């Protein structure tokens, strides 16, 4: 067990190292320096700036310095926002994304799991059909379309919400619902197929034969195993919510990390792009790791490699 966890931690760290290395060299591969601009910067200013950011050193020194700084959790200074570090920028905007993302995560689980159970239990009936129509729509309509449609209906037509600024939880609901649609649809499909498979197994028949109520069989015995694919899906789910937040935040005009990331792409703010990429990746790798360990703890059938 501890050996497995150790190996997973090592491979996660390796993934992070690959991520940092890849990000660093990809950013350096862009033709032109970070200060290349339409209007020419005087050469002595450029020289001074290169000197200041350490861009005159050999590449491998720059790489190891960057790696060391990342290890110290220092993502460097922004090239575009003067006097701001990437850390400060992330600290300022991530809480907004986190609020929206956390609500979306909870919503998608709260909607997806019951929908999956119901459609599996009422297989072929109207409840199943309805749930699966929604599940199919949820995975086929792109997030930005849903976001735009919501803004149009709720903000412009009905006027029940305001978009374009941030006031904490009250402005987080609509973006969160938008973000939750795709994962909720996906989760309901996962739970449905898991349930259908498990309900045919011998141990379920045994549980019924013991005289347990249907409620106990389904919610205690069957659900426990049907939920496992959902836990495996948690890490990609987080990834989906994170990347989905890029467009959703933009459409709703929410000042979160997603909006900020997209802006830094348009601004060619390289250190910020690198910093946010590494931040996101670290978050995901951590989620992956947690989900994997959690799975091993709850499911004794998984063989430890």
């Amino acid at each position, binding site marked *: 067990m501890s050996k497995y966890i150790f190996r997973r931690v090592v491979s*996660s760290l390796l993934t992070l190292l690959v991520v940092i290395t890849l990000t660093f060299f990809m950013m350096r591969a862009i033709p032109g320096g970070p200060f290349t601009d339409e209007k020419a910067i005087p050469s002595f200013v450029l020289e001074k700036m290169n000197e200041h950011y350490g861009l005159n050193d050999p590449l491998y020194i720059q790489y190891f310095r960057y790696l060391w700084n990342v290890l110290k959790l220092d993502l460097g200074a922004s090239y575009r926002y003067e006097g701001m570090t990437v850390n400060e920028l992330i600290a300022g905007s991530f809480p907004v994304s986190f609020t929206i993302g956390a609500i979306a995560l909870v919503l998608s689980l709260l909607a997806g799991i019951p929908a999956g159970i119901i459609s599996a239990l009422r297989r072929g009936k109207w409840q199943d059909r309805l749930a699966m129509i929604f599940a199919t729509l949820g995975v086929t309509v792109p997030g930005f379309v849903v976001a735009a449609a919501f803004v*149009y209906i709720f903000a412009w037509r009905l006027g029940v919400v305001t978009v374009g600024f941030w006031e904490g939880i009250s402005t987080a609901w609509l973006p969160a619902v938008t973000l939750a649609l795709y994962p909720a649809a996906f989760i309901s499909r996962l739970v449905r197929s898991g349930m259908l498979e498990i309900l045919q197994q011998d141990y379920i028949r045994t549980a019924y034969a013991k005289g347990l109520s249907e409620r106990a069989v389904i919610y205690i015995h069957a659900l426990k195993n049907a939920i496992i694919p959902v836990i495996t899906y948690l890490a990609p789910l987080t990834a989906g919510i994170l990347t989905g937040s890029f467009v959703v935040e933009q459409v709703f005009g929410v000042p979160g990390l997603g909006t900020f990331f997209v802006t830094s792409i348009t601004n060619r703010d390289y250190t910020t792009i690198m910093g946010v*990429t590494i931040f996101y990746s670290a978050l995901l790798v951590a989620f992956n790791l947690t989900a994997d360990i959690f799975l091993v703890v709850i499911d004794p059938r998984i063989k430890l490699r």
Partner: protein
Amino acid sequence: MYDPALFEPLLQEQKAGAEHIRPSKTYWQDAWHRLKRDKLALLGLVVIVLVLVLAVFGPMFSPYEYDAQDFMISNEPPNFSHWFGTDMFGRDLFVRVLYGARISLAVGFLASFINLFIGVIYGGISGFAGGRIDNIMMRIVDVIYSVPMMIYVILLMVVVGPGLKSIFITLGVSYWAPMARIVRAEVMRLKNEEFVLAAKVTGASPMRILFRHIIPNAMGAILVTLTFSIPGAIFTEAFLSFVGLGVSAPMASWGMLSSDAVGSLAIYPWQLFFPAGAISITILAFNFLGDGLRDALDPRLRK
């Protein structure tokens, strides 16, 4: 005890009467037969063919050019001469959506085929070689799997710069890992079959066995994965165009048309409706077809 009459050859007519075996069907005929009974999958196939035909031939028959601007008729609602209305530059939206279909479908198909190519070679070699080589190759895939791909696609687009060619390359080199895994699993399953042994005995080289004997037998799983990866690529292209990393104006893709429309959503909502509808219907069609194909090509999975 020996009756020569028992060993008399039958006459031709008698033989025909004794044949009760149904005509043998190939794997693909069988699959097609099953697919034909799946109404949703057929609907998906029909919609995809329709969209393809419209994308290729539609713009030729339109009286408008996709990039012809006319400020006298900007932002018109849908009417008889402009079925989907016009955009802020007075460009006909119907022809732009059709033209966008070309770009979006081209991205979907081409990127998926690059993925297919890389994934089949990588997964094939990994599964066929086995042992340490397989172990190392799969560890690499594991690492790629745990990297948030979308962020890397964005990063790669920043590096190679926006444009159609960049999208092909970026999506092509980014999403081959699932294909590699599936091909590997199939190769592992098939490589101990007897037909592989037979090929080995006749002196076929390993590469020939892999690509002429094993991979064709894994085609079913590969085709299903391909069908699901095409809408994935269309989705990703739409997303990239939406954040401003897609094709550049005056070209049009569905994602870019949607992105343009969001800016003026409050006043001209139909500008979003048509490209968004086109994306959704196409992805829906691919999903239906993929589900049907999976059921048809792999009877073991059917419930």
